[in-house]
């Protein structure tokens, strides 16, 4: 099975779309007419240095990705099973799915870029080697209430968004352990509540357009699920002020392929290979580390645990050489958590989450270690993992007393 992925902002670079503009002269001219400037000149030479300004970046990426897609159709003459786009890229995914024409899509993107460029005093930062839970905890502990998670790219690569002031203030709190914090070069707090005005205005604009039924399923950034009927206006406006659930979306697609006993191939269409790299990282992070069944005596168990840790580390060569004592201990305790869970609670155990309230969950896998440090388990009807720390098993016979 195949998914085409379309990149968003950040994938632009000067000279993008070289050779495509001549080949698709008519569409290029149409685009320039709609935009009021030469799209080819902007992408190839960018004489006025505008390519990195949101209102220009967005139409430029949309056009280049669209032309790349048409070129790909010519070459392969086969359509993908799914399409998905990162933020702005979702407009290309919808175009590929024949939701609207090239021209209508460009008008939408032009408007979106203009609206988003009006947002100032915001900032964004990439955080690596952390997790959603940890980031939320740090934000909460330090009263950084004006920051939200904007992109869940992989479980450990997350982008936050918020007021310029707090994005600057937050940096020192993330300078610990293995966490890396990078402020990004954006003017607005994209994908956060600070974008609500833009989102509302865009919803009004969207209502002027007619949308056709989708021909290829599109995975939405907002829901991490395929688009439902008549949800274009809602999804595209909501997308501006809510987080991009990229990690969940990719996991959803992988899972889907797995259920059909196939595997999902992800192919990036457009300039650059940003998304390919993210998906590669995601796959690496999700690869479960097998945990040996706990049959031996406790002393033996420790030894096996240590061995497993070492084998894991070999996979990331730079880490292979030294494992500090502390890291070892941490890893062992995670291992112990996992094996003691598996010893007590078989697949199918009913459980409750301390984070998500309400319904009872049921495990659909054994507990595993993710990313080398997180004890996790998967639940029925949920794609993402649950941290073992947040899960409480519901033990029936104890409840009767």
């Amino acid at each position, binding site marked *: 099975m195949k998914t085409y992925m379309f990149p968003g902002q950040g994938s632009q*670079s*000067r000279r993008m779309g070289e050779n495509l503009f001549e080949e698709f002269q008519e569409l290029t001219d149409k685009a320039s007419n709609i935009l009021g400037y030469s799209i080819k000149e902007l992408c190839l030479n960018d004489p006025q240095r505008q390519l990195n300004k949101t209102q220009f970046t967005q139409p430029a990426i949309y056009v280049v990705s669209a032309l790349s897609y048409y070129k790909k159709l010519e070459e392969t003459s086969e359509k993908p099973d799914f399409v998905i786009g990162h933020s702005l890229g979702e407009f290309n995914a919808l175009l590929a799915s024949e939701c609207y024409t090239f021209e209508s899509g460009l008008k939408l993107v032009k408007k979106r870029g203009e609206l988003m460029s009006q947002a100032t005093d915001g900032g964004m930062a990439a955080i690596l080697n952390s997790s959603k839970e940890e980031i939320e905890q740090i934000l909460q502990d330090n009263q950084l209430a004006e920051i939200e998670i904007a992109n869940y790219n992989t479980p450990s690569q997350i982008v936050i968004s918020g007021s310029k002031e707090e994005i600057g203030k937050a940096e020192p709190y993330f*300078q610990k352990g293995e966490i*890396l914090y990078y*402020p990004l*070069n954006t003017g607005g707090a994209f994908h956060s509540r600070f974008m609500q005005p833009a989102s509302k205005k865009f919803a009004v604009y969207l209502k002027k357009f007619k949308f056709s039924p989708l021909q290829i399923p599109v995975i939405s950034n907002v829901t991490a699920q395929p688009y439902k009927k008549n949800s274009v206006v809602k999804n595209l406006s909501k997308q501006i002020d809510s987080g991009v659930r990229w990690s969940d979306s990719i996991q959803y697609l992988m899972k889907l392929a797995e259920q059909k006993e196939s595997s999902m191939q992800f192919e990036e269409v457009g300039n650059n290979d940003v998304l390919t790299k993210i998906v590669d990282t995601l796959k690496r992070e999700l690869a479960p580390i097998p945990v040996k069944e706990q049959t031996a005596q406790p002393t033996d168990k420790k030894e096996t645990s240590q061995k497993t840790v070492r084998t894991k580390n070999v996979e990331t060569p*730079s880490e292979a050489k030294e494992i500090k004592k502390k890291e070892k201990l941490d890893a062992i305790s995670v291992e112990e958590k996992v094996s003691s869970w598996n010893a007590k609670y078989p697949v199918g155990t009913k459980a409750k989450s301390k984070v998500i309230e309400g319904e009872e969950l049921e495990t659909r896998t054994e507990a595993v270690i993710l990313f080398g440090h997180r004890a996790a388990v998967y639940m029925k009807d949920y794609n993402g993992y649950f941290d073992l720390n947040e899960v409480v098993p519901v033990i029936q016979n104890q409840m009767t007393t």
Partner: protein
Amino acid sequence: MTKPIVFMFSGQGSQYYQMGRELFENHSRFKIWMKHCDAIVEPMLGRSLIDIIYQDGRSKMEPFDELRYTNPAILCFEYCLTKILMESKIEPDYLLGYSFGELTSLVVSGAISLQDGLRFSIDIAELIQADSQQAGMLAIIDSTAIIDEYPHVFESCWLTAKNFNNSFVVGGLESDIVELHEFLNDRKIVNQLLPVKYGFHTKLMEPLKPKIIELFNGINCSSGRIPMLSSLKPNKQVSITAEHIWQVFRYPVDFSGTLNFLLQYEDYIFIDVGPSGTLATFVKYICNQEGDSQYLEVINQFGRDLDSLNKLKNSLLVAA
């Protein structure tokens, strides 16, 4: 009043094997940043920079002169050193790049991404290694007046950098530089061959102009968050264009001119965020005990990185 802090980034010639080894082994944040950089570079280079710098058992006395490795090594090293300074609340008001060090400025200021900077540093090294003649560079501790004094040995070389009054660098074809080196040795004029095998800052670079400009034009570049100064020529602030980057590689460095120009306006705290502390030494001689500027290094070639780092922090506490 606190003086503005200038982070200075040195370029080709300041690198050596094992640079910052003590930090790498003992400073966990430095190590984490280096590993992060290495994870980006390794696929581009096909080799781990950490292995090249620290693990291959090289002596720091051996010349570290393979441009394809030294370019990204200098950038990574200076970037990581900057990160740990900034994480200890030592924040620059200006960034001053010396030659290739301007690329570090670009990355630190956020004008270009770390990925793009590293990619560019490798691409340009490959370009230079493929297309240019083998050359050499010689640092000379004397007045530039000797150029006119011994025209016959200097005529086939070019002045590539003015560092301070009695220190300059010349470049030229390898054989000419070796000849000059021997000539100066005979006259007891202190000079040192630099671990640089290409004719940077000379007309030997000329054939590469279109390709260098093309390479840089392929990068997303914005104005950056921290003002950048160039040691190409006296100036207040530079706007980064491909033409400017080309000039950085093509034309001589005027470090003393740049410094004297800046010092007219105010005093500064200059911090050498390179591996050798050479720029701090240059500043020391340029200021020559006049004015109230300070010059500090983060580390130098003599090991003891942690001591050096603490010394820097203490000096800044006193200064503040």
